[in-house]
């Protein structure tokens, strides 16, 4: 090939590629996702990535989403923000300005969601958060932020009432939480719910992020002999906390760890020590919803697809909530009939959807309202649902 021919061929190829991009860009819904694919939250980031791939593969294989009479394919544009909150914000800006995404998905956790939400609000691009449950993220008056998890408070009130019903002599609780957005808000909410529920809170302290030893706090808790120990944190904190309780000979009829047992890593890491630990979670695959809208028509259909995609791993609430978050986006795009951000925002606000994950209906602050979240307990190495009654599959057992 002569140099001239080579240049001509190259130009033709480039032109074709450019045309191809232009043509396909019109028929694609671009969803931007800053994800923690490396760093401390890498596990969680990969969970989001996995279900979003499952969802897009399934929806695109079925032809895409009908938006104003045009069938549109869905494309997820993702970047690794390396579990660095500041970087998540920068990448959200890049996704909006350079990649021109139509909708953003928030990363894992309330802290990082808060950062991305500020960016999305500034550019007025709808943001759907699937793993952020702290009310402090949603009470900033943002109009473009929506979250599929329900508020923490609903969870803690139900738990106090349920435990008092199961153990009428329940009188004292020790609360020990991680000083981080979500774990702290759960500890605070539980403390408030316990007091209003007539319990005495005998210990109420936080531990700093990065704590690698809990012996001081746990030794104090031991001397107080509470009926109920409630600890919040991420999996590594809770594994260590439960082990140190055993090491120091601390026993209580009820030990709750949030959100420990909601993750398989917790039960795997602790083995028999996990048995009897209670928790609350936003979703568990045992809670079966059928005949619902979205990519999967039932919880079981999602579960079966998930088993295949993950080589037999069980899904947790992160998987459920994040997959359902895309159902919400698709539903809103369908109803809006356009991808224009303001119209999408209004359609999202009007969401009233039954999904495999359960009902999704956003309140005034953008949070999913009105879900009864399951209380779970590790029994015989597996997860049993204690509450609500309509999906419960076991009676609560006390630890001593």
């Amino acid at each position, binding site marked *: 090939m002569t140099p001239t021919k080579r240049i001509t061929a190259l130009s033709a190829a480039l032109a074709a590629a450019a045309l191809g991009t232009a043509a396909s860009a019109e028929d694609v819904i671009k969803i931007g996702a800053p994800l923690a694919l*490396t*760093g*401390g*939250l*890498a*596990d969680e980031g*990969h969970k989001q990535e996995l279900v979003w791939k499952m969802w897009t593969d399934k929806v695109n294989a079925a032809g895409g989403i009908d938006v104003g009479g045009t069938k549109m394919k869905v494309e997820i544009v993702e970047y690794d923000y390396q579990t660095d909150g500041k970087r998540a914000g920068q990448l959200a800006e890049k996704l909006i300005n350079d990649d021109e995404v139509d909708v953003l998905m928030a990363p894992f956790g309330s802290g990082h969601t808060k950062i991305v939400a500020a960016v999305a609000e500034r550019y007025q691009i709808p943001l759907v958060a699937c793993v952020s449950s702290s009310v402090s993220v949603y009470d900033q008056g943002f109009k473009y932020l929506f979250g599929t998890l329900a508020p923490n408070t609903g969870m803690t009130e139900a738990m106090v009432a349920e435990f008092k019903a199961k153990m009428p002599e329940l009188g004292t609780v020790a609360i*020990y939480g991680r*000083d981080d957005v979500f774990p702290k808000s759960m500890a605070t909410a539980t403390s408030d719910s316990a007091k209003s529920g007539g319990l005495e809170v005998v210990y109420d*302290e*936080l*531990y*700093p992020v*990065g*704590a*690698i*030893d*809990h*012996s*001081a*706090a746990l*030794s*104090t808790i*031991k*001397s107080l002999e509470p009926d109920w120990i409630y600890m919040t944190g991420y*999996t*590594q904190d809770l*594994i*260590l906390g439960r*082990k*140190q309780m*055993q*090491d*120091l*000979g601390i026993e209580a009829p009820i030990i709750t760890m949030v959100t420990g047992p909601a993750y398989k*890593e917790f039960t795997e*890491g*602790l*083995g028999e*020590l996990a048995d009897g630990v209670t928790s609350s979670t936003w979703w568990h695959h045992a809670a079966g919803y059928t005949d619902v809208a979205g990519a999967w028509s039932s919880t079981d259909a999602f579960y079966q697809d998930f088993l295949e995609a993950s080589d037999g791993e069980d899904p947790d609430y992160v998987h459920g909530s994040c997959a359902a978050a895309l159902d919400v986006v698709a539903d809103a795009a369908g109803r809006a009939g356009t991808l224009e951000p303001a119209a999408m925002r209004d359609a999202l606000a009007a969401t009233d959807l039954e999904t495999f994950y359960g009902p999704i209906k956003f309140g005034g602050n953008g949070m999913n309202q009105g879900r009864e979240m399951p209380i779970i307990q590790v029994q015989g190495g597996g997860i049993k649902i204690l509450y609500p009654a309509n999906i419960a599959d076991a009676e609560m057992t006390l630890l001593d």
Partner: protein
Amino acid sequence: MGFEQILANGIVLGTLYACIAIGFSLVWGVLNVINMLHGSFIVLGGYLTYFAWAYTGVSPVLVLPVVAALLFGLGYGLQYLFINKVVSAPVLTTLTLTFGLDMILYNLMTVYFTATPRRVSMEFGRVEFLGVVMPVDRLIGMGLALALTALLFVVLRTSRIGRAIVAVRMDREAAALMGIKVNHIYAVTFGIAALMAGAAGSVFAMVFPVTTNLSGVFLGKAFVICVIGGLGGVSGALVGGLALGIIESFAGVLIGPQNAITIGFVLMLVLLIVRPQGLVGVKGYE
């Protein structure tokens, strides 16, 4: 809760802290390199121990020498091939290099091992003595940490290689003129530091869940302990570790766990002002 229990908690935690810091202190004192890789070395040691236990069932105590030897090789190689090229450059250059190497190691571990916390779930039980409850695995960890520290102390004091390390630390040029292969000694020193980190990882795998998230935490602790205890000798890490462990233990009970870590940092700042060489550090190494 009794004073004895708080003190015992602090001493056990303190020896584990000393175990974290000792290699870091050695590299900082001898090479004048702030080794940002140190936390990841400990985590790597923890993972190797965990996988050995998970796949073959071998006890972490038995795996420890193998892990330590592997980490020695890794440390020696890294120093010989990379860090030696810039070892006499200002401290910021070596810090940046080890920071970069740390990012590679940290992310490789996150990609291949994932950040999922893993635990060697061997239950050793606990012992009770005079009302003080102590988990046996922590006591084993403490014993190993003390043994390793003592071993390093003896090696530095009595062996030829130990004396060569001390000589290079005192005067690099003079040591070279005496026939000491300085680059080799640097690499051996870095190797020993990595060995201590790997051994610390094995000890920690018995006590804490292993996850890459802890790499930065370990590094931060090592830094604080070295400043508190002082550089220039094995005793600095031991004294610094014990001081930090005991202070954190008492502060955790008296003013709440949330503020316990702050107290450690406050102590570090005070010492930097009034006694920059640390509690037992040799003047001139700060």
